[in-house]
């Protein structure tokens, strides 16, 4: 069987250099020296904070803590530890008062809907902080989440630049360890913390260790489903993963524009995002 663990290993100093430089350059070209990010105390946002601090200087990074009344207290403690280690500017804005009126109006709202509302409330806060602080929003979604669609559209998926979007969760952990994210944060079970006891792996019914290998083979290595099954992964699992990737493609694309003219945005009008910078 192909040693996929070895394939998921990266040249850590090189990746770190590329990501730090990308954050600095992409923010800088739009005339920004500062960045703002939502810090949950999880490994993804902690790593993003470390990289942003290295790229922009800790005084130019605002970490925004956005707890809800049921958020795990450990999350805030871990986030504060990152802020302390790096010396980041920070602010805490509780979203309970934003979302509860809607929950009260719609008492039958499912856990998933409430989770999405909370993720979008946090987006509102972050973009408002972006304006107030004069810095762009730095994203924290990793490649595994983006591929599986484990994120809220226009919620936690919203950002100006995302340094983690091309790193699988396994690779996020490797890099986090190398840059000095506390081991406690790296080791705890990943969770969106949208309700008590929620974990990514529990909710999706898979483990990152396993799914990252399958994703890497299907996406990066361009292997067919049959080939990946032939490498020893269960067929049901491989199919489930690929279905998730397929079903969530829309989340990774801008909204569909109904074409009528001969120069439609994104089809014939293909200017670079960094146009004029």
């Amino acid at each position: 069987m192909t040693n996929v663990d070895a394939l998921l290993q990266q040249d850590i100093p090189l990746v770190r250099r590329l990501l730090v430089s990308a954050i600095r350059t992409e923010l800088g070209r739009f005339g920004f020296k500062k960045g703002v990010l939502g810090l949950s105390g999880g490994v993804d946002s902690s790593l993003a904070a470390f990289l942003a601090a290295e790229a922009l200087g800790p005084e130019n990074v605002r970490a925004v803590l956005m707890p809800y009344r049921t958020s795990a207290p450990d999350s805030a403690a871990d986030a504060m530890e990152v802020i302390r280690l790096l010396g980041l500017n920070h602010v805490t804005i509780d979203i309970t008062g934003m979302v509860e009126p809607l929950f009260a109006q719609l008492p039958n709202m499912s856990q998933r809907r409430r989770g999405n509302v909370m993720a979008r409330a946090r987006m509102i806060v972050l973009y408002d902080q972006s304006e107030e602080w004069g810095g762009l929003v730095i994203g924290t979604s990793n490649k595994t989440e983006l591929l599986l669609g484990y994120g809220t559209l226009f919620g936690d998926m919203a950002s100006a630049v995302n340094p983690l979007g091309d790193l699988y969760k396994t690779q996020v952990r490797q890099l986090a360890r190398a840059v000095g994210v506390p081991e406690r944060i790296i080791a705890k079970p990943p969770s969106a913390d949208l309700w008590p006891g929620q974990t990514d792996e529990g909710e999706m019914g898979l483990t990152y260790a396993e799914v990252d290998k399958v994703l890497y083979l299907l996406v990066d290595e361009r292997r067919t489903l049959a080939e990946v099954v032939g490498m020893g992964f269960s067929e049901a699992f491989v199919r489930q993963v690929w279905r998730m990737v397929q079903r969530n493609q829309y989340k990774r694309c801008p909204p569909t524009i109904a074409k009528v003219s001969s120069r439609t945005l994104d089809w014939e009008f293909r200017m670079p995002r960094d146009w004029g910078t």
Partner: protein
Amino acid sequence: MDSQFTVGLAQTFPRLGDVEANLQRHLELAREAQGLGVDLLIFPELSLTGYTLRELVPHVAIRPSPEHPMWKPLLEASASMALVVGFVEEDARHRFFASSAFLDGGRVVHVHRKVYLPTYGLFEEGRYLCAGDGFRAFDTRFGRCGIAICEDAWHISTPYLLWMDGADYLIFCSASPAYGVGTEQEGATANAATVTQFTKTYATLLTSYAFHVNRVGVEEGISFWGGSLAVSPRGQVVAQAPYFEEALVPLEVDPGLLRAARQRLPLLRDEKPLTVLHELSRILSEERRHDER
């Protein structure tokens, strides 16, 4: 074959990336066409896969071999009716082509690989596909035919070459997107007007039958305009499908019209392909070409 026969223009809305579903739709339409007495049923470009495939290309590619599970039912259906179907073809060395195959009598009579892959404007075919390298007319029980796929037909040398190779029936298979909504052509987009115009012009100047079969539906926000068309060797529109809607349009083809048109307008008789060849050779060899840059 000098007797009349019936062509069916199958203006379909393929499901993007779902070869199995599209195959079933092909078989369904073939049965329906049989009821209408159709002898030759023509499907649009990439009718088995949909158009805006991007990196789905390798996922939907097939080898046109009788053993392939997608190919077998089509060959079986072609036992009673000739079919032109569009698909992504994978060759033995894993290159992918936008191809259209002419099937008849349970076998593959001819496969045309799209030569001109548009890679400008909204088109990105050159990124995902390999270009074919030739135009060949081929014999069928109806007469000699030639296939061109969408952009192929925008290059005027394409129908000319097929004509010189003996084709009396030009089959254009398209997935032509709708854009340009000026007020010149009511109910049709600007490029629809252009394609309709050149299809009529080709049929007239080549004194041949021209069939243009275009798809409909919407993919990735892009509408396809349909408006499939059959033009007689006299340049008359003898059948036209509606814009934007699925349709199966049958039409009678009268080979006698080829004979009549070529008496009235003996362009084929008087054509000087050797002069074309000499002039092209001269043009391509002259230094002048480089100075023009």
